[in-house]
């Protein structure tokens, strides 16, 4: 079963008398444990598409199923619940909560969104921190770690809830070349280990070179390119 199914997906923004069709009736599907990127020039609609998949922005028309659930008409509350349960996010600016330690940042979705019991939660957080190579940095605050480490923590936070899907918006844009490569490798490793689908919105050729499927967006329309790169997942 596909993780994401979109049929005739459309997003139109209306400002006064001006209508802008950001996404024009696109069809696509993404299989579980894929490494997928949406690429395209600025304004092509890749962030809009990612926002729709992430249940942050409802489509204007069409059908959108994520992890087997139609999310087209979810209200605000249900959309938040759905995101908390099934989707992990990795942001360009890492977006860690500055007043929480590394450990607490990863713990946040389990504590504030999913209400896991304390012992189970702590165990899971430590496991994820170990998995991203931050096992010994749990007591540090975001201001005390590097950009690459922050993004590792963000990946751990995205995966800690056993999310089936991780959406990453330009996750390497604020990282140097070496760190970016490390983060991409980490995400691939996580994909292999946890069978999670990673969907990127990116300009970064290093990501594009590592994904199996690339969707190129141009003026709201979609072209699919399959590559052999990054294969070999379980």
């Amino acid at each position, binding site marked *: 079963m596909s993780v994401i199914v979109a049929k005739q997906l459309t997003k139109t923004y209306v400002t006064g008398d001006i209508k802008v069709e950001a996404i024009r009736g696109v069809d696509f599907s993404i299989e579980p444990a894929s490494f997928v990127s949406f690429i395209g020039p600025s304004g092509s609609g890749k962030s809009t598409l990612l*926002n729709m998949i*992430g249940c*942050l*922005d409802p489509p204007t028309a069409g059908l959108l199923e994520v992890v087997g659930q139609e999310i087209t008409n979810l209200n*605000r*509350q249900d959309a*938040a*619940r*759905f*995101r*908390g*349960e099934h*989707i*992990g*996010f990795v*942001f360009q*600016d890492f*977006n860690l*909560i*500055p*007043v*929480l330690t590394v450990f607490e940042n990863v713990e*946040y*979705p389990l*504590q*504030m*969104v*999913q209400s896991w019991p304390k012992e189970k939660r702590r165990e899971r957080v430590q496991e994820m921190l170990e998995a991203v190579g931050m096992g010994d940095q749990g007591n540090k605050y975001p201001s005390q770690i590097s950009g690459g480490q922050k993004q590792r923590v963000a990946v751990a*936070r995205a995966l800690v809830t056993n999310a089936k899907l991780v959406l990453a918006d330009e996750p390497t844009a604020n990282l140097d070349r070496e760190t970016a490569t490390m983060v991409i490798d980490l995400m691939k490793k996580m994909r292999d280990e946890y069978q999670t689908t990673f969907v990127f919105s990116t300009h970064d050729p290093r990501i594009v070179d590592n994904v199996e499927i690339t969707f190129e967006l141009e003026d709201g329309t979609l072209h699919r390119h399959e590559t052999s790169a990054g294969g070999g997942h379980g």
Partner: protein
Amino acid sequence: MGNIFKLAARNLFRYKRRTMLTSMLITLGVVAVLLFISISGSFKSLMIGQITDSMLGHIQIHKKGYLASVDSLPLNRNLTGKQIDKVVQVLGEENAVEAYSMRIRLGAMFSNFTETTNIRLNAVTPTDEMKTAPLLTERILEGEQDGLLKPGELLIPELIAKGMKVKVGDGIVLVANNKDGSVNGQNFMVRGILEGISGPGGRDGMVHIDDAKALLRIGAAEVSEIAIRLKDIDQLQGVYASLQQNLGGMQNQQGQPVFEVHTWEAISPFFNIAKMIDLMTFFIKIMLVAIVLVSIMNVMIMAVYERINEIGTISAIGTLPSKILGLFVVEGFLMGVLGTAVGTIISLVSIAVMNATQISFDFGRQTGLLLSPTIGANDVILVVVIVIAIAVIASLQPAWKASKMDPITALKHV
């Protein structure tokens, strides 16, 4: 819920200076209100205590119409023996009554054999009067306090003592008109000088009730007023209502009411000052509410504005709007609690210090009144509840705005 408190506390700690300044403002407001309540309350209690315990009693019962013509001290509006018996019977059934005193109030001519002046007098049974007005003996500036007075003795107000140059032990003559208009005179010895205090009857002299009856040629049982002291002044309204029910409704054969019952509040003009103090306390509380409302709302609006991106993040990763609302409301709540806790501690310590340093003040002709501020648990709890409730209310609007924020717009915010 504990997680929300932890996160809210950390966010407050993030902006230490701002949190401290706002909490200090709330602290200042709480201290101002609690100190005002305790000092004004102490002043009020002191004055009420002075008035009721050394003069008026808590409740007075008269014949209907007596108070309206009290300036002329009318003897023809005295309570009769039958009426007194009825009052005594009703008072006997009131458990809250500690003591009562029967008084005859009269006007007389006071002569020291060289000069003459008018004097207003309360004629009392000393034992009853001392139980009803226990601070009365403390008003005796010169002369013996024990036993108040005996037949043939007189307590005179200090103004007359000074004006007429009369001293303790001097002999004087009182001449009074009785009910029929005839005049009678009697010799007395000045037993003591009575301190004048503010309010009705505060500058009256005092004689034994048996002497007054002889002077006025009253044969039967007859009194002008019955002053009542309660075991606890907080029972005032309850006892008053009960007496009104049992006595106020009684009518004579002509269908006219027989008795009038008044609390000290209706008799003493100080009650208006007490009401003014209550009104000022109310307005100070309103000012406190305004301080808390404006300061917390301002800080919370700033907090939401500064953390738009963060709100977008927690919203995107699935935090429910109700939890985001809770997070900001708890921040306001904690700031209210912090300011109130510090303010309450400072206030209680200040009150203890004021009591230890024995601050005195003058009021009217009374000097050296000792200020002993106290504050009831009810007042403290009320102020604490008001401040915390207003802090929560002030946080609601910014918190609501945060919870309704579109995550995409919030995430784009720089």
